[in-house]
């Protein structure tokens, strides 16, 4: 067992693939654009960023879309976009899909399956589905025998973990609310953000219950939008127009499917997924300059700050109170405003975290720029913490 582990450690993706293009469609409320049109907008933006023509794409990895429910979205998009890839797959591990697409794209280019992999997510949850249908569609992701008959929204699985965190560690509703307030502050600096009104802790606490202990403003948005990237073999970075951002570490963990089989409601598989990513990247949490942390709900961020190692277990609430997750703090997170205030078009939501971290590492964020950002982390998760995926990114200086 020990020898198989050391062999695994010797097989690394570190620095073998780079993000050579990054882009997005319009996001937020986008009237009159189908899911495929949004996807096309994002893919074109990523190609333009890399300085590539669409024919250069020979691999396509995508998530699925609720409003365009193709079983083989990656194949359907390739047809729509007029390309014939020789490597393709449509991935589905809920919210964690974003980071898994980068991890698998990096492995594909390192292993010679493709030269330039398009990583893409698109959906139209706001204008392509009614709110009722969007919520019911997401609920359909819970098990039809042991969960769905009890009327358990996806939000409810996350809410039960947050509730338990309050009981075990004394985390407060005000601390959850402060996460929302900081994300809104970030969105105010981000062109194109869906939510642009400043909010206070009291606004969050008075916004009405969704599912206890979460109020409306503890919950992420429902949006339209798409984001796309080109992942290329690292030895080709000189051929692209953009400043390369390298994939340094990757890790995933899947601890359960049903929320009642989650081993602990307050410690998640993000511990294992991030440990694997840090080990591959050869860094530790304190080395990370900027992070994208999946923020489907406010309490999710607090729990992930702990499990990703940015603060000790149980200290997440106080860490947020101390404003450690914004400029001047120890780990600026979701500087674009995240799923809570920038946009949450479903599966592409976490790709927007990748876009922000890539732009931070390229120094393109203007007044949102985290000075000297060289090493970034994005953590995607989904399905009541069932799915967890971490990707560590770095500039050329970090290789």
């Amino acid at each position, binding site marked *: 067992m020990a020898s198989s582990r050391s062999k695994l450690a010797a097989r690394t993706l570190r620095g073998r693939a780079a993000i050579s293009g990054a882009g997005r469609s319009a996001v937020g409320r986008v009237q009159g654009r189908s899911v495929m049109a949004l996807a096309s907008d994002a893919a074109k933006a990523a190609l333009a960023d890399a300085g590539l023509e669409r024919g250069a794409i020979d691999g396509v990895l995508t998530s699925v879309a609720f409003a365009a429910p193709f079983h083989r979205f990656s194949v359907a998009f390739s047809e729509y976009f007029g390309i014939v890839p020789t490597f393709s797959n449509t991935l589905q591990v809920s919210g964690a899909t974003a980071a898994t697409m980068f991890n698998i794209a990096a492995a594909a280019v390192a292993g010679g399956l493709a030269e330039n992999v398009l990583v893409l997510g698109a959906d139209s949850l706001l204008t392509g589905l009614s709110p009722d249908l969007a919520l019911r569609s997401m609920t359909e992701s819970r098990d*039809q025998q042991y*969960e*769905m008959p009890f009327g358990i929204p996806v939000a409810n699985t996350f809410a039960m973990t947050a509730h338990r965190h309050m009981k075990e560690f004394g985390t407060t509703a005000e601390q959850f609310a402060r996460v929302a307030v900081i994300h809104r502050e970030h969105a105010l600096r981000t062109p194109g953000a869906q939510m642009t009104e400043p909010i206070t802790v009291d606004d969050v606490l008075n916004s009405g219950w969704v599912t206890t202990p979460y109020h409306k403003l503890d919950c992420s948005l429902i949006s339209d939008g798409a984001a796309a990237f080109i992942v290329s073999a690292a030895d080709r970075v000189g051929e692209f127009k953009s400043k390369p951002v390298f994939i340094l570490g990757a890790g995933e963990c899947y601890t359960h499917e049903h929320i009642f089989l989650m081993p602990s409601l307050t410690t998640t598989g993000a511990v294992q997924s991030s440990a694997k990513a840090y080990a591959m990247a050869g860094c530790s949490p304190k080395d990370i300059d900027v992070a994208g942390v999946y923020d489907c709900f406010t309490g999710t961020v607090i729990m992930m700050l702990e499990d990703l190692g940015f603060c000790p277990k149980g200290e997440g609430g106080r860490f947020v109170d101390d404003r450690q997750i914004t400029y001047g703090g120890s780990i600026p997170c979701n500087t674009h405003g995240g799923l809570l205030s920038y946009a949450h078009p479903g599966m592409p939501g976490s790709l927007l975290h990748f876009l922000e971290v890539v732009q931070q590492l390229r120094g393109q964020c203007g007044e949102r720029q985290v000075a000297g950002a060289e090493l970034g982390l994005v953590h995607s998760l989904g399905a009541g913490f069932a799915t967890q995926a971490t990707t560590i990114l770095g500039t050329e200086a970090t290789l």
Partner: protein
Amino acid sequence: MRRIDPREAHVKPLPTPDADSQAYWDALKEGRLMLQHCRACGHKQVYPQAICRHCGAEELVLEPASGRGTVHSFSVVHRAPGPAFKQDTPYAVLLVELEEGPRMISSLMDADPMSVVFDMPVALVCDPIDGGTVLPRFRPATR
């Protein structure tokens, strides 16, 4: 992936039993909540399946649970997950820890949903719903 039809969204989802779970759903119709016990290692599990999740053995038997448990966590739903559950709000979804050890998802009956607290003792209620299905739900119990 499939797109939910608007009419379908107004209908509550019902469990469709399979070969693993038919006996579990049948027993609920007779008022019993069954736990699966592993004869090889003693592990008890919700939900029934072909192998023990702990040791991988296939010597599994169904035994009725006592129906007593406590609330490990909970969340009271005010915004329904689609139109089918709107008339039920607010309702309390419970993560019940059965006294035999395993946990399960259920919902509260016969009490104010906002009165739920952690570690509250609860007792099984076999609740008949549409189409002959019986759901394992819980009500407050005295210890």
